[in-house]
């Protein structure tokens, strides 16, 4: 990404030795910076960009467009090379491979509105993403002290997209089931009975439990066994348990969710509803966008002494010539810095094979690092509109279950609409995020575009007659797209090696899996240290908030 030259020239970084050097300020890296600083490690945290957040940044419209469309021109070595620098150090140049590829953006707004308001947008690069009110991300935010820099709002409503019927509310609580207008009385009863069964199962004081053998069978089979109709089954699997793959299609779904895990998902969802009195549903979203999360953790780290340097690319690794072990990094400024451990943003790799022969240098370890653990990809889409996909609803989540758009749709699509009351876009506009897992870029983007077309419409120039509405809700006029972007992001797992790397944003709506991987990485790096020991939290556990928000309800 091209950045304006900073008017300041950085002084050399001092000291030159650290316990840990971290490259990249995505959420995982930032959490590890905060956790390791909390236990007294000396850390240098670098980012080549001028902003915090890496793949979890929230960007202005202009910055987002250039991030997605212009190839990242970080000053990494043009040719993969390793050279012998001195008697005992080998310098290996890093290669930066953008995580986001195949980007296509389109502007349909002919006025200057978007360009004039570019800075009023804080658009998430890793969206759609939200937090469950009861998920452990909230616990981590409190435990780490990052919560004090953040404010959230509840997502107003949760919908599931039904083929030929449009958006239906997710019946996620007793009240919601009662109020639901699209479920039949029979369906309401079936769902109530099922929720009661789950509730009894989770309640330790109740005798009635789901049989052990049922807990181990696929959740989808259990739901069938409970004689739940396809519609209810689909809501439970995709809109509440948030599963990605068609559970009825054994070919695409390698791992079917087990009943016990399905029950856990239901439990998390239901305990999220009503946890915070002024959150209307199960989900929360940070004011100013998800980019606030990594920044909150970085500030925690900074308060504990972590040194921050933005706009500073790392160009090479410094390796011990004899042992092949990691020694340090060389910065774009030319400075060499040393640390016991290194964490690299997953977009950095080592060229393979090394183009230079280095005699006895044990390069096998480097080859290991060059092999990234790519676990497929996620297609992401962003649409800016001037009206909501549901009248009178500002923010909402939408799940499109498999086969809801067309028969070949094998993955579910997650979508999140955020309005201007979350300070991410100018008044009167909305951002709709979409994502789905995919194996092929074209297939992924095709699916997201179908999802977009189901709820939004592209302006037809010179013709007031727009695309015929697919929705049965005839009073709903589909919002017109002002701007859209579709891109593909690789999914790379975290890795603990002599040089560790953090995971990329995953295809999930919440952060739990990502933070689990982060905590695991921290524990591998520092097996004797606690991940955010209690004493580091500055917060008084007594709740003094006059808003009456309590955490344990």
């Amino acid at each position, binding site marked *: 990404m091209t950045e304006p030259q900073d008017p300041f020239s950085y002084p050399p970084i001092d000291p030159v030795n650290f316990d840990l050097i971290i490259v990249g300020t995505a959420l995982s890296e930032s959490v590890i910076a905060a956790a390791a600083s909390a236990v007294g490690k000396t850390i240098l945290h670098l980012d080549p960009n001028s902003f*915090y957040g890496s793949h979890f940044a929230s960007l202005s419209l202009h910055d987002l467009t250039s991030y997605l469309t212009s190839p990242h021109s970080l000053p990494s070595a043009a040719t993969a090379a390793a050279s012998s620098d001195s008697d005992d150090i080998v310098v290996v140049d890093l290669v930066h491979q953008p995580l986001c590829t195949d980007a296509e953006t389109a502007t349909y707004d002919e006025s200057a509105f978007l360009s004039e308001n570019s800075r009023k947008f804080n658009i998430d690069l890793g969206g759609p993403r939200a937090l469950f009110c009861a998920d452990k991300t909230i616990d981590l935010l*409190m435990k780490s002290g990052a919560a004090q820099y*953040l404010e*959230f709002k509840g997502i107003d409503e949760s919908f599931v997209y039904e083929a030929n019927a449009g958006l239906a509310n997710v019946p996620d609580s007793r009240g919601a089931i009662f109020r639901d207008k699209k479920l039949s009385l029979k369906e309401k009863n079936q769902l109530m009975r099922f929720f009661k069964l789950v509730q009894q199962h989770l309640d330790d004081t109740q005798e009635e439990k789901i049989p052990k053998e049922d807990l181990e069978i696929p959740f989808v089979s259990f739901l069938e066994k409970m004689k739940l109709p396809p519609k209810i089954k689909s809501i439970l699997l995709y809109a509440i348990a948030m599963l990605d793959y068609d559970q009825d299609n054994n070919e695409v779904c390698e791992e079917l969710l087990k009943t016990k895990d399905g029950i856990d998902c239901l439990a998390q969802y239901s305990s999220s509803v009503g946890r915070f009195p002024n*959150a209307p549903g199960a989900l929360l979203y940070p004011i100013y966008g998800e980019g606030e999360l990594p*920044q909150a953790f970085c*500030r925690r780290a900074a308060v504990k*002494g972590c040194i921050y340097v933005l706009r500073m690319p790392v160009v090479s690794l410094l390796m011990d010539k004899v042992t092949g072990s990691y020694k340090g990094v060389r910065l774009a400024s030319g400075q060499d810095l040393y640390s016991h451990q290194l964490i690299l943003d997953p977009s950095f790799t080592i060229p393979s094979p090394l183009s230079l022969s280095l005699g006895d240098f044990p390069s096998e370890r480097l080859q290991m690092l060059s092999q990234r653990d790519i676990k497929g990809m996620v297609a992401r889409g962003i649409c800016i509109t001037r009206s909501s996909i549901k009248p009178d609803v500002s923010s909402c989540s939408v799940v499109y279950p498999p086969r809801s758009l067309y028969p070949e749709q094998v993955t579910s699509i997650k979508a999140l609409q955020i309005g201007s009351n979350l300070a991410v876009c100018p*008044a009167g506009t909305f951002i709709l995020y979409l994502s789905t897992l995919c194996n092929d870029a074209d297939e992924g983007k095709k699916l997201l575009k179908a999802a977009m077309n189901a709820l939004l419409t592209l302006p037809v120039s010179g013709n007031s007659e727009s695309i015929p509405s697919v929705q049965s809700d005839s009073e709903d006029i589909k919002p017109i797209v002002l701007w859209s972007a579709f891109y593909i992001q690789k999914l790379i797992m975290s890795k603990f090696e002599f040089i560790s790397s953090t995971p990329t944003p995953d295809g999930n709506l919440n952060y739990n899996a990502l933070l689990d991987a982060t905590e695991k990485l921290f524990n591998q790096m520092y097996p004797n240290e606690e991940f955010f020991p209690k004493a580091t939290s500055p917060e008084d556990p007594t709740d003094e908030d006059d808003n009456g*928000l309590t955490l344990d309800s």
Partner: protein
Amino acid sequence: MASRRRMLLKVIILGDSGVGKTSLMNQYVNRKFSNQYKATIGADFLTKEVQFEDRLFTLQIWDTAGQERFQSLGVAFYRGADCCVLVYDVNVMKSFDNLNHWREEFLIQASPSDPENFPFVVLGNKIDVDGGNSRVISEKKAKAWCASKGNIPYFETSAKEGFNVEAAFQCIAKNALKNEPEEEMYLPDTIDVGGGGRQQRSTGCEC
């Protein structure tokens, strides 16, 4: 609820490393000064109750937490500031020259709706050093710069001696209060999962 938001005023202190930002905060809030300089570790934000025209306000003063050292303050730090304090060391030319950069950086990052009238206050700190013999920026020069930037109030301070610190912060509080909030998004449905961290904090220092 809207008035509750106005009870809390966010003030951020900007300026080069070592000009005395943390010391000024500490002197004002805790009436303490430490001669031992360490690049800021442990300072987050400090709060102080201030009374103004019979109303009580909470001044929340945010330190840079050392992230200014390599100009690496994130946009989150700047958000929602009601007043921006620019500090330089009267004995260090570069710290004065950089005031312009810090002011511009603030205006870009915080993007206040009315940048012309956003309240800044400039403090020339460390006037005690060497009995004033080592100073390189005259009061006249500093005041001329402040005048050229829309008459920014200017104070000469010594965090060490506690000189003029109270007066400077009174002006800061007054100007923060006058600043019209951006748009009222701090509606009642805002959820603070930490149980009131932003509203209720005594002292943020936990060294």
